[in-house]
């Protein structure tokens, strides 16, 4: 599972960086979105990947004093991802507004507001 996960993040991030460096503003937006998806997956992965593991230690288990941390999922990265998604969504929406404004003003979707001289 880790290999597939890591490859997924790598492909998303790589495509994101490539798009980010393109001259069209919509490509830049897509690049930023792909990069933030990759980052969100990366944060999630930093909590170790586990299937069917509860994030909270029950009181009875805690009282017995025999806690095996590897049997539990880490809830902190999930909370971090949630925050990062919300913030990323808001700032991407804002970027979209600026993108449309520039498109409307200059009539081109080049990030510099004018077509490069041929």
């Amino acid at each position, binding site marked *: 599972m880790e290999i597939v996960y890591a490859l997924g993040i790598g492909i998303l991030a790589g495509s994101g960086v490539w798009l*980010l460096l393109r001259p069209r*503003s919509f490509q*830049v937006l897509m690049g*930023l979105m792909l*990069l*933030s998806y990759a*980052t969100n997956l*990366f*944060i999630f*992965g*930093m*909590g170790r990947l586990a299937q069917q593991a509860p994030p909270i230690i029950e*009181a009875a288990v805690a*009282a017995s004093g025999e806690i095996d941390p590897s049997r539990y999922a880490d809830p*902190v*990265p999930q909370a*971090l991802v949630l*925050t*990062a998604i919300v*913030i*990323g969504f*808001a*700032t*991407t929406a*804002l*970027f979209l507004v*600026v*993108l*449309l*404004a*520039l*498109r*409307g*003003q*200059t009539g081109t979707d080049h*990030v*510099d*507001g004018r077509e490069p001289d041929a």
Partner: protein
Amino acid sequence: MNALLRHLVVLPIIVPLLAGTLMFFVAEARRTLRVALALASVVAQLAAGIALLYLTSDAAPYIWPEGIGVYPIGGWPAPFGIVLVVDRLAAVMVTLTATVALAALVYSVTRWDRPGQPFHSQFQFMTMGLCGAFLTGDLFNLFVFFEVLLAASYGLMLRGGGTERVRLGMHYVAVNLTGSILFLVGVALIYGMAGTLNMADLAGRAGALAPPERALFDAGAAILGIAFLIKAGSWPLNFWLPGTYAIAIAPVAAAFAMMTKVGLYAVLRLGTLMEEYETLGAALFYLGLATLATATVGMLGAKHVARLVGYSVLVSTGILLAALGLRIEALTAPILFYLIVSALTTCTFFMLTGMTDRTRQTNPSVSPDDDADTTSVYVPYGIKAPSVHAGDEDAGIAIPAAMAFLGMAFVCCVLLLVGLPPLPGFLAKFALLATALDTPVTVMTPTAVWVLCAAVLISGLAGLIALSRVGMRLFWSLAARTTPRLRLLEAAPIAALILLTGGLAALAEPVYGYLGSAARSLHEPDAYVRAVLSYETSRERPEDHRP
């Protein structure tokens, strides 16, 4: 009373949050109320900042022993719950933020805040983000506060519209979104390796990491550092900065004076907290020198005053980074003094630029507020645009001898920026260089110190040449210029800030003494770590009563 004073830490964050939110419910037409709300909020922040300055000094050990205040936001103790931490450095930065914000806000009231966009709300959220970034003791919370201040700054930067502003605004947003992504990657790596995001907890755990984790932790710290350096405007990540600052309207650019300082603060804070861990590498020194060199060339080449001031922001970043890179403990106090002076100077100069721009009649094409263009940002949405200059001529009391005032203020700003006596720009640079030369170098070679001295002095000389040239063109040239009507409310913050820097020079000894103790407590991170991790939350939680 003491219990209430403890809540002072959260005040600089809560107050602007409430004020900014309340403003959405106040009708546009009730402008006086909005302005009053905004001013009250910033004044309250300033008061809280000054109170924090007093409480973190040794004057009040009964509240916070060792001058470090911890405020658990949710009532949970430190490594689990999120804490705000105030020490002397944080108190200084909060006070500085509030001072700069107050000046910029008073300045903006005359005409800049007129059209419909939520200027005052955005401004409040920006100060909230700044204060939060200075006060937080948690790495992820630092990210959240960075985003708050950046999101507000996007709106503020785009204010006024116009093709050029939107174009540079898009670059600004794209660069900072990329920076935020890097920030998140760094934070995630650090969490994955150290298992905590609490800064005090990290300081203890980072040193104890074994080789495989340690390499990844290093990578995480480096990526985080890149994110901070983007905010601070370090070369080669700073090409967006001069243009963006020059094109933003004057009060916004003035408030942005604190933005680069947040990045520097983060480098300083995490660098000193993980001192044993050797986070601050020699790279900072060379990056600082490169920033200084490129910014100096930029200053000499800049044609427009605002652009020149934008480059001067980079000059101060370069000097600060290079000085930090020397890793001499005794340098921290002069670094802080220089940081304060340069923030106040840039703020004053940007406000002044907004006024000198109005003297120009002949060459509107370089003017950052191109009136004809203001409509176009609304075109795609079919909204009729309000004009920035609506009611330009009717607000406030005009002051006499406008040109004389502008000239005097310009000279003062130049003295501050270049570092000539009697204003504290000189004291700051002198303290920096004298301390660097006095202290035996341990990490870098002695040559590095001499290189830094030469670079600082040369950049000062170049700045003087560039500013004299611009000043002569502004005030002595024969080209047709109008004498602008200056309003009292615009001139007052500029005069007040210049007087404040004068006060800093006159009271340099106590100020420097306070910064010295701030620097000492920075370099003894044990006290910080102890204060945060051993903080007992007084309220008992129900879980504690279970068997």
